[in-house]
């Protein structure tokens, strides 16, 4: 028997209202209630970053956050990045630089990388490494992830 609460929040730019059990984590709400399976379960304990989303402009491990805590907030998931015009520049850079292999960690990796770049458009490779330390990848060795992030930073700085 689980207590359910009604919550309202903005999800990928749209208002959303639903009832969630008090014990449900945001990750489960996104995947099971809202059908947004881009955000992944890979450990469930905040150690791997595969469940990374953005809440009120900060990245969080959605597996550690209660769904009810989304109430009143601005939530962005991987599905919210692309536009009808195409991929988000970070997503496109990951594709162009070969940063995606099995891809399972990529939604979390991209959400974190995008957030790092928004905070600091002149992100260096070393700063990107530090910032992505909490996103585990078993396929790529991170090298092309960092190439992609560097490329986006370089583009942004060339616009300044």
């Amino acid at each position, binding site marked *: 028997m689980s207590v359910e609460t009604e919550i309202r929040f903005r999800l990928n730019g749209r208002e959303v209202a639903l009832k969630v059990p008090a014990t449900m984590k945001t990750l489960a709400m996104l995947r099971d209630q809202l059908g947004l399976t881009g955000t992944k379960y890979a450990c469930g304990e905040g150690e*791997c970053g595969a469940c990374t989303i953005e809440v009120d402009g900060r990245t969080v491990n959605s597996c550690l956050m209660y769904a009810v805590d989304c109430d009143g907030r601005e939530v962005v*998931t991987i*599905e919210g990045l692309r536009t009808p015009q195409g*991929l988000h520049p970070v997503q496109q850079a990951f*594709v162009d630089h070969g940063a995606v292999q*099995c891809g399972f960690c990529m939604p979390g990796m991209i959400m974190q990388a995008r957030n790092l770049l928004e905070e600091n458009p002149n992100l260096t490779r070393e700063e990107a490494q530090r910032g992505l330390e909490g996103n585990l990848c078993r396929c790529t060795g991170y090298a092309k992830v960092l190439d992609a992030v560097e490329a986006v930073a370089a583009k942004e700085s060339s616009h300044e």
Partner: protein
Amino acid sequence: MSKTASNSPIGKKTLIGQRVRKPDAPDKATGKTRYINDMVLPQMLIGKVLFAGRPHARIVRIDTAAAEKLPGVHAVMTGKDAAGLKFGFVRDNVALKDKVRCEHDEVAAVAAESEEIALRALELIAVEYEDLPGVFTPEAGAAEGAPLIHDEFAGNRSLHFEFKHGDLEAAEATSDLVVDNVFRPHHVTHCCMGTSCAIADFDHNGKLTIWTQTQYPYNYKMDLAPALGIGPGDIRVIQPPVGGAFGSKLDVYPYEPIAALLAKRTGRPVKVIYSREEEFRASPTRQAAIIHMRTGCTRDGTLTFRTADVLLDNGAYTSWGPTIPVIMMRTTSGHYRVPVVDFKAQAIYTNNPYAGSFRGYGNVQTTWATAQQMDMLADMVDLDPLEFHLKNAQRSGEITPQKSFLRECALVECLEAAANASDYSRKRKAYAAQRDEPGRYKKGIGLASSIHNAGGAKIHKSDGIGTILKVDDYARVTVITGASEIGQGIDAVITLIVAEELGVPLEHVTIVNNDSDIAPWDVGVHASRTTFIAGNGTRRAARKAKAQILDAAAKFLEEPAEALDLRDGSVVRERDGAPLIKLDRLLRQMHFQTEPEVVMVTDYYEPKSEPEGARHVSDHSAAYSHAVHVAEITVDTLTGEIRVDKVTVAQDVGRVINRMGLEGQVEGGIAIGLGYALSENMQLDKGRLRNACFRDYKLITAPEMPPIEMHFIESNCAEGPYGAKGVSELPTIVIAPAIANALYNATGVRIFDPPMTPEKVARAIHDRRTQATPGKTAVLEGMTV
């Protein structure tokens, strides 16, 4: 109606060696890809497994009554439901156990309407165990009077392998120097980001459809069938996108037949999926081994013999781990020119978790030993290791004692490229001279190499692949291939090859490869074979299609077919690139003529290689290749931390096909090898895993990855597609001993038991410093040099 498109000539361009995007990358980057872990089917139930949680026990009683009564529970199954359904390479396993032989033995399973209900049902299953004394090392398992783990395997003896070549006594007599060490490559695990998952569903005819993460879909049917008591022909294997595999999905593991048994019982699709903790505890490991290796050489640095006496911790059941000696012996006999070889390996059952295949498959463990012994011998004969390696390196055309034919061998080129690019010899001398000087941080440089299969491995009668290719009326190509895509990028390679041969855009190629009812046979993703085998298969099929198209074009255009080519969506005159007719137009003309002709071709490609037989002598791969790594490190002698500053790689890839994909495989392979070398370790305590989470099992993270400088040596393999060889395991195989050799260069210590954690390194440095004789190698745990 004009037949020509534009008038400008189309020059010959090639995609071989270019950077090609992975076709599924956009969907993966946008979160659109539905992995097996994300799948939901109508009416689907969730299956969960009750694991024993103890290493060795009799199951006295299981009471499932309370679990069965829980609302939402559709089935509870135990060992009696799988009795007699033995599976596995030696048929020592069943889906649900009659006896507990390791911590992750599956004692019961539940199918319920939600994961929450299934987990609650597991809690309601009451099991009474009688704990039995366990064995947790192969030595203990082999000892007189040791508890028997399987009644059928006396003395807990599992598989054994042997290979001998030449007169060992004579070789020992001619040796001036011998190194004799024991290495203990350890238990690590794959840590695929997508946890283990299978979905099973039976149709009304008793045919099973199983959605699985398998990387060998066809032989998987033969291996799964006995676990269910059905015929392999009644199994349809569907492979959704997966979150990694790395060899872990080359066998059938109990959760898969469990999903099927639950599906059969309930009449509904059942999805079994592991939590991360279950993944750590219950998925296969890399094979742990105790390798007693001896290598000899003469005073001038010529190798005389190499012996290896290997004891394998079989774990509770026999999967592919204990079969690694088949590859271990190839390295023992073929890593450099070794005139005399004596190899033996024995696997012993224990109550530990058991090993499957893992990228590198026995060569990681063996090269850990051979590459360090090469380095040690070089030191002892006072030769620069580079010179020592060059002196013993094989050249093209040589044949190893096991008859591996090194038709195109680029070991020398790789050694020179890596050593020159990294300034290895000068730095090595300089750092060695600094070893005993004061200073907390010491730099070191280490070189290691290995040899591995690069053209498949004929451990099957057929190591081949089927390809079906069609080109439609709009010049869109579909390739139906047996090659499985597990994230390694064969989709990009296939797309590239089709675009190259048929002159169509990459985006106009579709690959179908994930349904055993549709796609033709392939042995599977292993032995670094897929680029070679699937690349050849795709090229052959594409060329058949091209020949058919150009023959038809020749008739319509009244030009000889040999004078034509396909470029950029058009049929052109080969000589000057003049476009003659658009390809899609031609295809429609072919189709809608009086006697229609549609382009549909098939191909089955079997590489030229030979099964090795009981004596383990044959040219069992269509190609072999080498890689050399030079690792540059800084060692904090106070904390023992090793920071890898740079890795220089020289690898014989035959020919670069997709440059971007190739780099990704090297970088990713090195990351796995780095974890193996420095930080990953399954801490097993009397059969129980103590660190079943990412917090305590340390993977390499982004800040720890060094810059990697890659030199791809193109030896132009005559048998490979465009000259290419397989690539993906060598990066994992070579990096760890390169770092071990760098550690020795920096500090004078050697570690034979990976991982080289800060604690081990610090202690070894301390022990060396406090020893009587400075300049002597300190080695952990009482090994002798």
